[in-house]
């Protein structure tokens, strides 16, 4: 990629392994993350494909029951801890946060690089446990399955997740401090792009929830290695305690996973409908509200675990409350489209698909938050379908929207628009074909985590497996046309989508320290409706030398 055209950009600053592996430039660290996370995404995806092939027939003919347990455990561990949690923050967030707020870099560039090395170190432990024989506890490491009865590499897998937690906390601290201290002159809190708001909310959750996960994983490792029986009733401990600690982190963690996706969509929808984001303040505040409510609803994972019925009622009520800020966002996004000049470029297609899939998954969440219904649906495919609609249909679709939206900025190249639109549509069709049947399966009583099933479920399982193949094609396509664009793509202009964000005011790709002259912000975000500014129609910023 390095050639004359890249001179003066961050990509022209040397191309050897040293220049990449010892970089402290946030834009290059973002690439390190992007490449490693793509590896994990396809590793976890391959496991999902194996599971879907196994489930095409009622009998267990491809893998053994124990092998199947290991497949879904590793699929979950890799996808949740090594892809979804870091996905948008560590790649797009890392690349864009300083650009969007007019800073030269993150507040702590070396800490940022260190976080990637910690991530890789932790992921080695997890990969070791994959190669050495796997884990069969599910991604949740429930005790006593992970302590008394485990027959896999639980300690190394849990330790890997524990290490990756440090990388998450480092990123969180870096983002929070950056947003507080490095905003450009004139960039007040309520002029920040929503993507920055959601990264900020995500970082708060990362910093305050991850340590509780760390505590519970330390206690598991202490129990397995040192024999301290905190979750072992034989030694006076309580297994249910683990579920409380685990979900105290892991429920907020689902908001770590979805909030940045909401931020991406809030950037893309206004740009391709040429309208300011409807209800900017409501969207910003509801991001923070989701982060706060997220800490108060962990008990809804334990409705049938024997917690008190009164606790169940409270957690159910609070879970319904989370739907309010989420619905505020969905309505505001929809109203942004109203009377807009909508065009359907690839990022916009992904963003619209996000809107549909997130709404669909979110509504299913209300079923599960209702106590009586949850007793019927708990641990069935209904739950699988619900969180895949949010995590894959929502988060991964938003990730793809963001990747296509900012790809010209990151690489200085345009990709094939036709291929992009086809891939987005194939993904949408494949996704619904894979996961909608799982709602039906779960509603009819098919439990999760079984590799054999009664023949009457086969119709829906076959549909779902067929959908998985289509979905895999949808996810593999960008690998090729985005990869090709690096070498063959047309040069990207600085602002190909005529978007308003500060990141579009610098060159594509940006220079090493982001801006040649430091920007000063004079207008709110998403000023797509400013009149009388024809010569700078989509450029609500002026550049001035920093004082």
């Amino acid at each position, binding site marked *: 990629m390095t050639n004359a055209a890249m001179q003066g950009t961050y990509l022209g600053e040397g191309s050897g392994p040293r220049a990449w592996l010892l970089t402290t430039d946030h834009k290059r660290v973002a690439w390190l993350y992007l490449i490693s996370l793509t590896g994990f995404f396809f590793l976890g995806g391959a496991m999902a494909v194996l599971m879907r092939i196994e489930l095409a027939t009622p009998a267990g003919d491809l893998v053994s029951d124990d092998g199947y347990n290991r497949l879904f455990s590793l699929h979950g561990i890799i996808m949740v801890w090594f892809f979804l949690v870091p996905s948008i923050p560590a790649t797009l967030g890392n690349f864009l946060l300083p650009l969007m707020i007019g800073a030269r870099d993150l*507040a*702590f560039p070396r800490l940022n690089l260190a976080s990637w090395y910690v991530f890789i170190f932790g992921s080695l432990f997890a990969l070791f446990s994959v190669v050495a024989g796997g884990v069969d506890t599910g991604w949740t490491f429930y005790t006593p399955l992970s302590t008394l009865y485990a027959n896999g590499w639980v300690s190394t897998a849990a330790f890997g997740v524990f290490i990756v937690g440090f990388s998450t906390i480092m990123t969180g601290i870096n983002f929070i401090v950056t947003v507080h201290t*490095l905003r450009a002159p004139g960039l007040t809190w309520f002029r920040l792009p929503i993507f920055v708001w959601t990264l900020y909310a995500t970082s708060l959750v990362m910093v305050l929830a991850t340590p509780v996960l760390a505590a519970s994983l330390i206690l598991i490792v202490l129990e397995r290695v*040192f*024999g301290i029986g905190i979750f072992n009733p034989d*030694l006076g401990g309580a297994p249910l305690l683990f579920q409380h600690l685990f979900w105290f982190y892991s429920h907020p963690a689902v908001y770590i996973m979805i909030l940045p996706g909401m931020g991406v969509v809030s950037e893309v929808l206004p740009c391709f409908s040429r309208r300011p984001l409807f209800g900017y303040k409501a969207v910003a505040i509801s991001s923070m509200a989701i982060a706060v409510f997220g800490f108060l609803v962990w008990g809804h994972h334990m409705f049938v675990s024997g917690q008190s019925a009164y606790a169940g009622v409270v957690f159910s009520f609070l879970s319904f409350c989370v739907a309010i800020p989420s619905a505020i966002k969905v309505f505001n996004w929809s109203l942004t489209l109203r009377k807009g000049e909508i065009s359907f470029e690839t990022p916009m297609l992904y963003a619209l698909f996000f809107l549909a899939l997130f709404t669909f998954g979110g509504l299913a969440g209300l079923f599960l938050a209702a106590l009586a219904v949850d007793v019927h649906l708990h641990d069935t495919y209904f739950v699988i379908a619900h969180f895949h609609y949010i995590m894959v249909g929502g988060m991964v679709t938003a990730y793809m929207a963001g990747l296509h939206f900012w790809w010209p900025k990151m690489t200085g190249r345009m990709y094939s628009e036709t291929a992009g639109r086809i891939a987005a549509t194939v993904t949408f069709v494949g996704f619904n074909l894979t996961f909608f049947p799982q709602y039906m399966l779960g509603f009819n009583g098919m439990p999760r985590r079984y590799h054999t099933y009664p023949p009457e479920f086969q119709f829906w399982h076959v549909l779902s497996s067929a959908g998985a193949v289509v979905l895999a094609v949808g996810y593999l396509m960008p690998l090729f046309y985005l990869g090709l664009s690096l070498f063959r793509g047309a040069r990207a202009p600085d602002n190909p989508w005529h978007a308003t964000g500060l990141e579009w005011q610098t060159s594509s790709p940006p220079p090493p320290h982001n801006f040649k002259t430091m920007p000063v912000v004079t207008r709110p975000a998403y000023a797509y409706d400013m009149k009388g500014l024809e010569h700078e129609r989509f450029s609500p910023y002026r550049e001035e030398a920093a004082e």
Partner: protein
Amino acid sequence: MSGTESVAFDTPQREQRADTLAMWVFIGSEAMLFGGIFLVFLIAHIDSGTAFAAASKHLSLPLGTFNTAVLITSSFTMALAHTLALQRRWRATVWALAATSLLGICFLVVKGIEYSREISEGLAPVLGLQFRYAGPDPKHAEFFFGLYFAMTSLHALHLIGGIIVIAGMIALWRTANPDNRLHRVEAIGLYWHFVDVVWVFMFPVLYLINR
């Protein structure tokens, strides 16, 4: 960009604000870590309070009290280091930092003595050691000692981290300019006081609450 460690900042003053904020955020994160563990202890205490009360009498109150005094004194010398750094009296600052880390090491030595006493008395249910306990309800007493070792060793690890950072700061002292020195002292000072405060909660919860 002169005088800043990160390219992102224009002035050392803004960088120092950022460093201090980062340390506060990190302390918030650490508070959640210890908070989780304290919560586990609290729930266990509600379930088996009498067994815990009996078991906690087997801890050494004199050594625990001595260690508390040592750690609070180390917080005093750390506060002194910060005051001296604000006055730019660098030599005295280094001495105060060295005293702080020595007091930290003293705490760890006494903790080690306590651990070895408990191990020799058979009160350590870790690493497959035989747990010998004469009092009532040995099962829950074992749980108490498990928690005791988990909590105090986690605290000791944080203290060791602090001592290593102070040692590193003293080693790099000559290469740092005055602004860097000041904000490093401020950041490690915040961390040190936090680790101290954790002990101030841990001591009564483990040693005193049932006496």
